[in-house]
């Protein structure tokens, strides 16, 4: 029996010659320095790749049940969540594994950047890596569209508004993107084709080149300060190191195996506990009481769009991404030699810290959305009782107007309400009666004018109430600034 199996295997080996091809690749030597703890920093790429495989497997499963039709996609997602055996779990894994893939690709890039592994002779490996990063984001966005809920619908609207700003050909590109004049069945189907055929194909093709380069050019040795990369001598030195190297499989791979296992456990755990993401509200263009938000990794971009000055906005939307990608892509061409160790590359370290800090700050702002009106604050957030206790009828009338005229959507009282405009809790210490009236009637400084919406009795009552908004014992704001200046 044993002999028979051996014979059969040999029959295949004679034809495939794997011992001299695949097995040599699996056993390719890795610099010995990776044996130390620094070797743990080399596990992110292989884990990201594992998650890609996981995405394909779960994606095929979802593809068997999902109906990529604008009229039925939403229901088919509900069907997967509630009717299909373990459908909710498969959607959850696909979602959390996608999130994990975005995170791991970024961590992997950061590690490669900090350790100077993109330098000679691995510049092209980095460039293909940038392509893989962009494709991963592309998969994330198109996948979000396939969720076909209100976020997806209005997210497409945002994409359309951006593409529509491209000079001259904007409107044509919008029609190409949507597959017609409006968001509909042709839109979902083309995003389905992108997500399921086009982008995975490009991902696999790029990944093949990336892996080929990783094997051909070898895994970079951990950097040592003042060990400079010189294209004249690097290859020779590197090959010298490989003579004492460890085989990738199974020696070096053990760490990858451990981290991949841990990652899979985390994803299974998160999926089981947190479940799938959505679908949220249905993609109905007539349901306007929605607050569309992108998935978390795009929140910083969402914040940039709220905060950029209108005059620069189109430039920021259209030109900044091109510049950022060009810098990322061409970085190794300009910095492909010299120091590799982060201890000798303070600028590189600062770039990474700067990028992560900006990302986190913008992300935090994207979560808080201080620039957005709180659409339900006027009807849902009460006026604090201490602000209306013992007030005159006219002042109470003013408090009612403040509430009724949706002022609270933008203005907070005691921190409750919108943050678009200033908190009005102590407004009377800042603005005089005349200034309050002018601000209400004429608006200004990003506040709409309410002159047409309020009659003079309403303005009078509202301002009477606003004048009471100051801490006890504090004086009201006085118009003394002008006389001071006149002196």
């Amino acid at each position: 029996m044993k002999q028979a199996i051996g014979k059969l295997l040999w029959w295949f080996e004679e034809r495939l010659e794997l011992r001299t091809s695949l097995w040599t690749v699996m056993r390719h030597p890795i610099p010995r320095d990776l044996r130390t703890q620094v070797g743990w920093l080399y596990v992110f790429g292989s884990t990201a790749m594992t998650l890609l495989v996981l995405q394909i497997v779960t994606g095929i499963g979802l593809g068997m049940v999902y109906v990529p039709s604008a009229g039925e996609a939403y229901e088919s997602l509900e069907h997967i969540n509630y009717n299909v055996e373990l459908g909710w779990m498969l959607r959850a894994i696909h979602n959390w594994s996608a999130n994990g893939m975005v995170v791991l690709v970024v961590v992997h890039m950061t590690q490669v950047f900090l350790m100077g592994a993109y330098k000679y002779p691995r510049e092209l490996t980095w460039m293909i890596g940038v392509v893989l990063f962009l494709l991963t984001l592309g998969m994330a966005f198109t996948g979000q569209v396939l969720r076909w809920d209100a976020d997806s619908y209005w997210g497409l609207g945002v994409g359309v508004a951006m593409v529509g700003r491209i000079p001259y050909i904007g409107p044509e590109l919008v029609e190409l993107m949507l597959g017609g004049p409006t968001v509909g069945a042709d839109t979902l189907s083309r995003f389905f084709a992108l997500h399921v055929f086009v982008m995975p194909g490009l991902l696999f093709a790029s990944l093949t080149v990336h892996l080929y380069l990783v094997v051909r050019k070898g895994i970079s040795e951990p950097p040592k300060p003042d060990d400079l990369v010189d294209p004249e001598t690097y290859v020779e030195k590197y090959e010298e190191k490989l003579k004492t190297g460890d085989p990738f499989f199974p020696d070096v791979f053990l760490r990858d195996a451990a981290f991949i296992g841990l990652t899979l456990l985390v994803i299974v755990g998160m999926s089981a506990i947190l479940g799938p993401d959505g679908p949220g509200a249905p993609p109905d263009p007539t349901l306007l009481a929605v607050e569309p938000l992108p998935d978390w990794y795009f929140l910083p971009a969402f914040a940039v769009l709220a905060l950029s000055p209108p005059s620069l906005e189109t430039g920021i939307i259209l030109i900044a991404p091109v510049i950022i990608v060009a810098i990322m892509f061409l970085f190794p061409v300009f910095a492909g030699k010299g120091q590799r160790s982060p201890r000798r590359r303070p600028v590189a370290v600062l770039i990474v810290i700067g990028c992560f800090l900006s990302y986190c700050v913008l992300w935090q702002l994207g979560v808080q959305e201080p620039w957005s009106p709180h659409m339900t604050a006027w009807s849902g957030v009460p006026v604090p009782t201490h602000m209306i206790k013992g007030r005159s009828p006219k002042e109470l009338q003013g408090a009612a107007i403040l509430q009724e005229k949706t002022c609270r959507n933008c203005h907070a009282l005691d921190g409750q309400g919108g943050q678009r405009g200033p908190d009005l809790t102590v407004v009377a210490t800042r603005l005089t009666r005349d200034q309050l009236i002018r601000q209400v009637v004429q608006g200004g400084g990003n506040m709409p004018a309410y002159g047409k919406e309020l009659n003079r009795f309403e303005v009078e009552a509202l301002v009477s109430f606003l004048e009471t908004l100051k801490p006890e014992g504090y004086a009201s704001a006085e118009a003394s600034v002008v006389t001071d200046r006149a002196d």
Partner: protein
Amino acid sequence: MNSQSGEPPTMETATTRRGFMEWFSWALLGLGSVAMAIPILGFFLGPILKPRADEWVDFGPLTDFPQNSTRLVDVLNPLRGANDGMTGKVAAYVRRIEGETFQIFSTHCTHLGCPVSWFKESGLYMCPCHGGVYYEDGGHASGPPPRGLYEFEHRVEKDRLMVKLGHLPTLQDPGSAHVSGKNS
């Protein structure tokens, strides 16, 4: 000419049968490729090769719209496809100023296309995404939008309000009212 030699054809042989065969093969490959590329490219460019214009939609009798008020109207998008489902619907804000004077607004914020909500209490449209605010007449009141709300062309026909709409308005391709120059 010697077909056994295996030498690439030179300028002298270009006019010979072998040269002609070579030229003919390349030409045939080119012709076939172009012939095949035309319909395929045409398919992918279909949405812009066969653009669809906005169409008139019945918004209901005038009596549905009280004077000096604004309300949201849902209709079926005239440009919807057979499989669009609920995305084949479209909504628009109808403001009846008085008599037969109307303004019809798109629900899309002119900043980045999010849905604006109408607050009759304050006479404002507010956008939940980046804080764009518009006045009752569609004019820009506050926030990042580069212009007022998009407007659609309308007319009154046999005491019914007709509105011309369909495509998703964007900055360079706004609502029908802007195209015709009316009400803009």
